[in-house]
């Protein structure tokens, strides 16, 4: 079951570290958000495969917004 990975804060997408189809390991950085001059990493909660990325670098995002979909192994 693909899992929605959501933004934990309101801010901007600073860096996208993964692409659709990529394998990720537990704890790996998926996306780095920026808010209040701090970089806030969104990390993989399980091993899995990135299905879709729903944002671009520089996008403004709000808390709770879906950033990407990951299919856990």
């Amino acid at each position, binding site marked *: 079951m693909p899992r929605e990975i959501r933004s*934990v*804060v309101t801010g901007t997408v600073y860096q996208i570290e993964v692409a659709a189809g990529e394998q990720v390991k537990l704890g790996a950085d998926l996306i780095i958000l920026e*808010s*209040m*001059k*701090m*970089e*806030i*990493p969104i990390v993989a909660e399980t091993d899995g495969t990135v299905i879709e990325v729903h944002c671009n670098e520089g996008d403004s995002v709000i808390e709770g917004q879906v950033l990407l979909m990951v299919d856990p192994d």
Partner: protein
Amino acid sequence: MSSKKGIQDKTAPRADLAEVLAAKAQTLDENRPEAIAKRAVTGHQMIRQNISQLIDPGSFQEYGQLAEPAFKNLQGPADGLVIGTGTVSGFRVGFMGYDYTVHAGTQSIINHAKADRFLQVVESLRLPLVLWADGGGWRPYENNINSRDYEETFAMMARLSGLVPTVGVVSGRCFAGNANLAGLCDTLIATPKAALGMGGPPLVEAALGLTLTPEELGPAQMHEACGAIDVLVADEHEAIDCVRRYLEYFRGADGQPGSDPDTSALRTVVPENPRRAYDVRRVIEGIADQDSVLELRPKFARSVVTALAKVQGTPVGVLANQPMYLAGAIDSPASDKLARFIQLCDAHDIPMLYLCDTPGLMVGPEVEATALVRHSSRILNAAINATTPFMTVILRKAYGLGQYMMGALPLRPALLVGWPTAEFGAMGFEGAVKITHKKELEAITDKKARQVRERELADELRAHNTALGLAGRYELDDVIDPADTRETVIRFLVSLPPLAPRTGRKRTIDNW
């Protein structure tokens, strides 16, 4: 020689006792199948089921089980309020719970009298109080009864502030007088079925012309976000477990050391990149006994974390900045959250642990418009007037008045240590160099070059204010290996004097 008949005569209740037993039996769940069925429709337990799951078997001494509604046309076992003393995990408590199956848990002439009497008992015996608050406020059917309408319940409840721990549960609809009692509790636990508010739907409709269900008016999630409730749990069973756990923090060291967490992870939890955020809850988990952390108000004012925890079985109140939100800056809600938590710990002599990583107080016109000048002062007022001992760990940033309010030296911590990543400043370095090197920086016309120079100057300041630099000037008692933080906290706890037995109130606890 006695005949079999003779024994029966001696042991069987006489008519007078039989009448009492029958009246008591009428109040019990097994004789109230219709009420049970009604509760089942909304997925709730009976109040007596909650009591039997929370209070140790055989320990409940009920008060007023035989009370009846003053309005004789109404039926109502115990007049809709079940109260008594008992023990939870062997420790004494007072329990007071409204019975929602009796006229929607409303407050009546007789059950107010019961509450008044019982809260006096709770006060005089200094019993920790558990309140199950669900109910609809005043019972309107009793408006026509000739009474003085005099009750002390709310005043009595407020008098308990700081004297004894008070914990409330809301698992359904809870409005007006019932909500007032909930709001007077130190800590409030709720389930997703909670609907809480001071003015219920009939009042809202009469005053504002708005038609709302209780759940639309005061849903649990809203109260979790705005800070009115402290812990949101899945259901009544979890609420009971949470009450049991909560009470444990108010009994001092339990003599059970608890299981050690993985402390080695603390060496890497603060990222090397100073701009990178991390979840400070991982730091707390690396210090506290496993599964001992109870975070209060987790969805409210999220730039700070307030949590009750145990370290080697000793209760500790943890106050931490959360770099994941607002970079750990302290705004007005965060100020209120910290100030109330300090008061809670101080009132009940729970030692505190500050984990500091803050760029300071939040800045900007929006936050100033929230009266940050006043709200932020509450932290300092609460902290400096508290006598419960505390220690402070500077995890990373310690800037400005924000760090001052996070357990800095002028507040006289019993112990002040830093991690190797600690950095200090009276204000943020970037902001400071803009003032101190104003002319030099303004002379640089190229924007990028100016930024580079700004950063250089800020880094020079930063290099002077590292953990080692601070320890060299003896502004820190020690710089520690992050993996040794738990051991350091244990040594702090061991250094504390024994508590004098309490005979009265030390301070009250602000309800906000």
